[in-house]
């Protein structure tokens, strides 16, 4: 409130701050309320109370009260006391110095200490506090040296390779030629714009003060601060772009305060080396541009008035010539930046909303969206829940999977900065994430987990790639606890039923072929093939893999590549005429070797039966007393039908006989007792 006129109550102040573009993080109420503000990086001019006050005045009107910088100068001329040489003008476009003699170092007055504490700064002594006070007040960092420990020469230069300095925080820093330093004739006495050196810092015995107020190159300061891992109030402000025109004023203000609170006399004048002026900044502003961007027009007078409230100088008429005040040089450089300022002052919420005029037709849904939506809906129909998991996995997950380096799952990408252990890699498969979901639910006593996920996996294999996959996992009871159903757990064929059903709904014909993979149970794993390619894998997970997780019981998992599905599935429907002629159904039961895959027999029946075999369904699998050891009985129901005529009984008989004979020939299959059923 010291800086604006008229005074404003807290609520109005908060409203104005929001309108100006500050985020209100918090408010501590009280006699002297403290507001926690978020200042965006493009507004370094608001990293001080004055800048904020300036914004409030721009939004509400009123007057800004600039702090008093009037000085009573002494007799001695400052140019007799200190000389400044800037060797790197790019790094330091401006450096000013003042000298205050005869100070008495002690604690700061209560009013200053209180204000510093309110904004989170610790009071140290009256000299340092004065510099911090001005930093908070004007937003410009200054530094105070013990004049007698420096001598009369200030050199602003790049550090020598390996040059050392003991910074004020007690750390010995090793510098590089990338770093800008303030030096005396010989050694570095401060890391420019970041932190001063301990050797020349203000102590209780300091009698004379050398006050630095400068402008440093933002990129240079940022690089140095980052490299040294230091972040200070000073570096924060210089990084974002300080005001190159304010150093003398800030210097005067600080000198005034120092004299007031610690005695001392300020030498006459200020040493001001400004080899690289940063302005002026002049921008051409077209009225049409404003209307074109914002969608609302303003009069010349309004435009000028808005900008002038912010401290800009406007001359002429559209296109205007706008002179940007130095404290905004870091942010306002182009015409478009002026448009934003006008919108801000006018008020974003006052700009009328318009639905776009041109004709807008709804956009089509893409093929991929349709396919994925279809997959989700089908799986939900089967009772599965969709999960979304983190994209990370750990070395421990990789170890549990036990895959050789040639397997795709091994080719994991490492993060330079993982968020925690167990999350050092990007996942190469959805399985670890799905297992964690099973684990977590199991621990919470959920009795069945039937889930799926659609998400990306990542791989590095001659380049980084990411691929969208479908993962399905089943664990636990098959059914929810119910008086209808048994207590059975899910098994391989529950998973297969879901995958088959999904493919059927999509019109995809897939083959399941026995496979082996280190992460799966060797006898319960199948590769999934479609469109002539391997598109996935499914099966029961290997107990060794599960031992890496806190999971009891069996887990069934399928992982399928989505890209082939998306590419091959079509949504065109074409009607096929319903059969006109009746079918003949015959059941046959064949005794075959135990390890003969059922699919092979089915395929053989279809092959031998030819066109007249419409369908072959396995309806029973029997191993038991009547069957010799090492054999099993497969019972198939064969549907015979011709699209052209009604089949005669003898025809079908003959065909059956041929089929049975062929099964005998190919597999040594025998017809089971009573194996003909019509």
């Amino acid at each position, binding site marked *: 409130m010291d800086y604006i006129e008229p005074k404003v109550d807290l609520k109005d102040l908060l409203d104005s701050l929001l309108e100006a*573009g500050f*985020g209100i993080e918090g408010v501590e109420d009280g006699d002297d309320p403290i507001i926690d503000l978020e200042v*965006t*990086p*493009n*507004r370094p001019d608001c990293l001080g109370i004055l800048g904020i006050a300036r914004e409030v005045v721009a939004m509400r009107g009123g007057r800004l009260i600039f702090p008093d910088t009037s000085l009573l100068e002494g007799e001695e001329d400052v140019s007799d006391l200190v000389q400044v040489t800037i060797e790197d003008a790019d790094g330091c476009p401006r450096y000013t110095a003042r000298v205050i003699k005869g100070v008495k170092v002690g604690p700061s007055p209560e009013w200053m200490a209180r204000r510093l504490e309110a904004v989170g700064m610790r009071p140290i002594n009256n000299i340092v506090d004065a510099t911090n006070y001005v930093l908070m007040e004007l937003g410009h960092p200054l530094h105070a040296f013990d004049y007698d420990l420096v001598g009369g020469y200030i050199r602003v230069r790049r550090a020598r390779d390996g040059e050392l300095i003991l910074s004020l925080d007690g750390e010995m820093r090793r510098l590089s030629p990338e770093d800008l330093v303030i030096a005396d004739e010989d050694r570095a006495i401060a890391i420019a714009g970041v932190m001063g050196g301990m050797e020349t810092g203000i102590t209780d015995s300091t009698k004379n003060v050398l006050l630095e107020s400068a402008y440093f190159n933002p990129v240079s300061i940022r690089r140095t601060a980052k490299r040294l891992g230091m972040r200070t109030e000073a570096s924060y402000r210089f990084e*974002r772009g300080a005001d190159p025109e304010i150093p003398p004023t800030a210097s005067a203000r600080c000198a005034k305060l120092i004299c007031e609170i610690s005695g001392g006399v300020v030498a006459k004048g200020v040493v001001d080396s400004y080899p690289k002026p940063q302005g002026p900044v002049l921008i051409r502003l077209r009225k049409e541009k404003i209307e074109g*961007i*914002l*969608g609302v027009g303003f009069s010349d007078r309004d435009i000028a008035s808005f900008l002038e409230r912010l401290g800009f100088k406007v001359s002429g008429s559209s296109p205007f010539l706008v002179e940007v005040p130095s404290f905004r040089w870091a942010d306002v450089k182009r015409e*478009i930046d002026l*448009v*934003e300022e006008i*919108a*801000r002052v006018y008020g*974003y919420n006052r*700009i009328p*909303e*318009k*639905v*776009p005029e041109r004709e*807008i037709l*709804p*956009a089509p849904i*893409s093929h991929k969206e349709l396919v994925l*939506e279809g997959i*989700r809906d089908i*799986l*939900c*129909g*089967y*009772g599965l*829940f*969709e*999960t*979304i998991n*983190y*994209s990370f996995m750990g070395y421990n997950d990789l170890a549990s999977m036990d895959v050789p380096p040639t397997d795709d799952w091994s080719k994991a*990408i490492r*993060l*330079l*900065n*993982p*968020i925690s252990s167990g999350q050092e890699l*990007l996942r190469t498969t959805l399985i670890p994430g799905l297992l964690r*979901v099973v684990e977590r*639910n199991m621990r919470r006593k*959920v009795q*069945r987990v*039937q*889930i*799926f996920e659609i*998400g*990306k996996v*990542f791989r590095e294999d001659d380049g*980084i790639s*990411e691929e969208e996959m479908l993962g399905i996992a089943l664990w636990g009871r098959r*059914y929810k606890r*119910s008086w*209808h159903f048994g207590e059975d757990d899910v098994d391989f064929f529950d998973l297969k039923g879901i995958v088959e059903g999904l493919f059927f709904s999509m019109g995809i014909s897939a083959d399941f072929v026995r496979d082996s993979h280190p992460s799966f149970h060797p006898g319960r794993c199948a590769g999934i093939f479609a469109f002539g390619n391997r598109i996935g894998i499914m099966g029961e997970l290997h107990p060794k893999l599960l031992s890496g997780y806190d999971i009891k019981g069996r887990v069934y998992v399928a992982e399928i590549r989505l890209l082939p599905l998306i590419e091959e599935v079509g949504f065109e429907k074409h009607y096929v005429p319903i059969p006109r002629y009746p079918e003949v159904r015959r059941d046959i039961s064949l005794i075959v070797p135990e390890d003969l895959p059922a699919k092979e027999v089915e395929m053989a029946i279809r092959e031998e039966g030819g066109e007249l075999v419409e369908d072959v369904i396995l309806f029973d699998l029997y191993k038991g007393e009547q069957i010799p050891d090492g054999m099993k009985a497969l019972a198939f129901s064969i549907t015979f039908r011709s699209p052209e005529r009604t089949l005669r009984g003898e025809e079908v008989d003959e065909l059956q006989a041929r089929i049975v004979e062929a099964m005998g020939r190919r597999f040594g299959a025998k017809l089971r007792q009573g194996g003909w059923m019509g």
Partner: protein
Amino acid sequence: MEGVKDIWDRFGADMERAETEEDMNALRAKYLGREGIVSKALKKLSSLPREERAAMGKALNEIKERMEERIREGIREARERGIRRRLEAETIDVTLPGRARERGRIHPITRTIREIVSIFRGMGFEVAEGPEVETDYYNFVALNTPEDHPARDLKSTFYIRDGILLRTETSPVQVRVMERRKPPIRIIAPGKIYRYEALDASHSHTFFQVEGFMVDEKVTFGELKGVLMVFAREMFGKDALLRFRPHFFPFTEPSAEVDVRCTICKGSGCRTCGYKGWIEILGCGMIDPSVFGYVGYDPEIYRGFAFGMGVDRIAMMRFGVDDIRLYYENDIRFLEQF
């Protein structure tokens, strides 16, 4: 020979005892069958004196008809009785649970994205996607965030190696699309994004955003507001209110953050909105001309707006979920609520 009346009485008594359809059929056989009593009596008519024949014949035929009728009726009743009894025996306790055919659920994040996308699709926005592993160029440089710029501090990043990272927002998709196409463009781009942030109730290192942008010869901030208002009304209800505040994004100028008035307390302040009455849901602005520079559009001819919203936050408001971690824990008891 028995009198007609006697036959009828006997029949009546038999009918009384008959219960089932079988019984009825037996009775029919007994009386009306080939060897049945009435049939036999009819055959014996010829042995009667002529004057009695007509009357007897008539009477016999009459009772024959009546018997037929009664038997038919009896059968009908027997059937009905049978059905009634069976049905009673089949009574079940209807309060027992059904043989459940439960469906699963789509994840609340997916559901929210579907809803958002559908609203914008209605306004002509097409879906586009981009990679989750991005380059420094697309994630920062082309979005007007050069190296050594403090704006890079705004979003902490997961790095894979120099120049390759996990995208911190969906905005890179803007650049990728604009590079490949010329305006007019209207795109909505949902996707997973990553920020190096510790997990807590309102922050996650992994979450979802939906990016949207529109580029054409004449596009204004007013239209940006208009489009977002349509979205807000469809998403949060007809009385939804939006508030625009100046903010900063490297790739938009002017930039704004947008709050929606809390749907729970209607602005008076409650737990959901942190007692502020408004909840921040998205950032937006007019696309910065330097971004156009990177994709080869002339900023004197083309203009555009862009916006990005956090799906998790919107879902939290929609469903009242108060902890973002719940979305990624996937507890079934959480998932089944949607």
